[in-house]
């Protein structure tokens, strides 16, 4: 089954790369949904079937909820938001799509090198899991840093979150059911709240560009005669 795991993880990398290169929001959401399914499947795939037998109900349940929340619920929520606010694409990202792809690729390579250097031999389900987790987290953070649209930033956050989950699965982390569900609940609520915020932002600014969201700061102090205050 290990080879299947590696295929899944490779797919993960692929989604990362495509995500970095795409400007169309619906496509990006679909990619994140795909990642959600992959994340959901991963614990099952990484389960050492020959030695441990059939996984307990807890694993199945977590996989199912994960896949449903990250692969269906959240993407449809975001897609709804995209439709509602009529945002189609990420125009003018801070880093161009081509360069983004190259950077994400570089991140992947760096993660592999780094993962190789770490020598994590014990308690690892797959050699690939740790580097892929790092690469995915990096991609998520990179997306947040390099994109302007609020929705893309949420997507970036989800990718980051997926990376962490992959890592958890990779090192066969066992929290217990409550925690797993709690984490999922958190992610769900977070995206839900962010979604609401997106609506409000869109309504208030008539735009989803977060450029409008950098009014609070201390730099205006450089011009003592110019005060902007509530």
């Amino acid at each position, binding site marked *: 089954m290990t080879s299947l795991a590696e295929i899944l993880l490779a797919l993960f990398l692929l989604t990362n790369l495509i995500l970095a290169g795409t400007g169309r929001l619906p496509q990006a959401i679909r990619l994140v949904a795909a990642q959600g399914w992959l994340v959901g499947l991963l614990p099952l795939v990484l389960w050492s079937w020959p030695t441990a037998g059939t996984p307990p109900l807890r694993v199945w349940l977590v996989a199912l909820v994960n896949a449903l929340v990250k692969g269906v619920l959240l993407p449809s929520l975001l897609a709804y938001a995209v439709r509602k606010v009529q945002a189609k694409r990420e125009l003018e990202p*801070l880093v161009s799509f081509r360069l983004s792809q190259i950077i994400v690729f570089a991140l992947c390579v760096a993660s592999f090198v780094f993962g190789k250097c770490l020598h994590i031999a014990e308690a690892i389900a797959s050699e690939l899991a740790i580097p892929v987790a790092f690469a995915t987290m990096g991609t998520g*953070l990179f997306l*947040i*840093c*390099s994109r302007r649209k609020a929705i893309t*930033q949420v997507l970036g956050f989800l990718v980051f979150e997926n990376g962490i989950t992959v890592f958890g699965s990779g090192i066969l982390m066992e929290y217990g059911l409550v925690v797993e569900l709690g984490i999922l609940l958190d992610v769900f609520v977070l995206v839900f709240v962010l979604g609401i915020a997106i609506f409000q932002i869109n309504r208030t600014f008539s735009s989803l560009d*977060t450029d409008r*969201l*950098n*009014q*609070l*700061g*201390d*730099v205006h*102090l*450089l011009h003592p005669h110019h005060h902007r205050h509530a």
Partner: protein
Amino acid sequence: MNFDILFLLPIVAVGLAAAIHATAYLHGEALLHRPRFWGFFLATLVAMAGVVLAPGKIAFLLAWEAMGLASAGLVAFENEEKAVRKATWIYLLACHAGACLLMLAGVLLGRPDAFLAAFFCGIVGFGLKIGFPPFHVWLPEAHPAAPAPASAVMSGAMIPLGFYGLLRFFWPQCHLAPYATPCGWTLLVLGLVGALGGILFALPQANLKRLLAFSSVENMGVIAIGLGLAVLGWDAQPIGALALAGALAHVLNHALLKGGLFLAAGSVLRQTGTLDQDLLGGLMKRMPQTGTLFTLNALGLAGLPPFNGFLGELLIYSAAFAAVRTSSSALITAGFLVLAFLALTGGFAAAAYCKAIGATFLGEPRSQAAAEAVETPRRMWLAQLLLFVLSLAMVPGTIYLARLFGLGTDLLIAAAVFGGATAALAAALIALRRFLCPRGAVKPACPTWDCGYAEPTARMAYTGTAFTQPLADLFNPILHARRHLIPFRGHPATPTDAALVGETDDRALAGFWRPIFTFFARLFQQVHLLQNGSLHLYILLIILAVMALLIAAFVS
């Protein structure tokens, strides 16, 4: 050695006198403001007493910081004025910076071989309260800003507490062998610069309380000179004992006399509404008790016999003579420096007090307010009288002090006796004069002669600024006085008023501290770019910081 009582005395005496004075001084204030004054006033006194009585380092620091804070409340009393708010801020900063350094000194004192570092922290920390240059910035700002009774307490009793701190925490070690040289010279040089610099800057000040504030810098310098000499010469007695006794006597003299002078300045302000000496004059006639007491106190503080101020200086001079007589070249140098600087300071002090008395109390009034002034309620000048009488008691007091230190008292007794002789002879001569010119013959009948001017007016008289101008000009490279001429306008036949206005700012503030503060404020504003509102930058910061931490983790 325990110096507690010595430093408690001024707190009680000046505190009492200032309280008496304040009951009348605050009379014009809104009823609501008075509790504020009294609250801070009492808190200040309690905190000052706490400083002296504090049983340990922590209690001392606590009381010290509380003292600064409480007195800042006094400085801020008349906070409607911008200058007062600025003064309060500067004062608060000075207090807090001092307290911070004292904490550091406290840390260092606990270590085995960090005494010198502790001493330097301490000297800056306490120096911020004492007013060693360039740490004296708050004095000329805060003293004019505070109500007079508060200035009296702050200048008379609070500032010298810095010396109390120095003595309490550093004396046991600093006069011993390896430390005596650096510690002594530090104190001495600070004292020399403070004494001369203080009085130099006092001289051209037009604001009476500012003048007094700068003269406090001078007096603290004199005390520091005494202490420095005491530290340097402790092993070559009687230099050390003479200098220490002189310094301590000067602490008491300064407390009583400067307290009285500040109270008198308060009376002047209350009766005329101004402290600008160029607008005052002629108050000796209108406020005779205040004027007389101011004159007497000033005489004492200028260190002139027959008053007690002289005895303190005499002790320090004697220490300097004794130092010159030794065979150690360091002590000889120190002795000569003290002689020259103290003499110059004495001359300038006399000039400055002459100016203060002359411009404020003598001659004709230069403004309506001064012309209409009347004597204060009795308790205001009684408070000053109290301090003056106490200062007279310092004549035997100084002799007692010298005896405590095991010194021969011939010197002091002779000075006191001949001081008394001066007074007696003066009385005899006055009697002779009264005999020669009976009262009727000296009845004032005519205006001042003024070399034939028919109608001399107050505007012709020398103002305080004019009086000190030659000396101020001589030292202008140090003083950097700002002078500007307001020329007359209109036709020469009907000119408007012209004036020459001069101001002497504190160089330490304008030339030293302000540039430093501005530099840091500018620097900090560059860092403000990091908080420019961009989420992208923020997240980048997080990533970079995590990476830095990770690198640190793997390197360590």
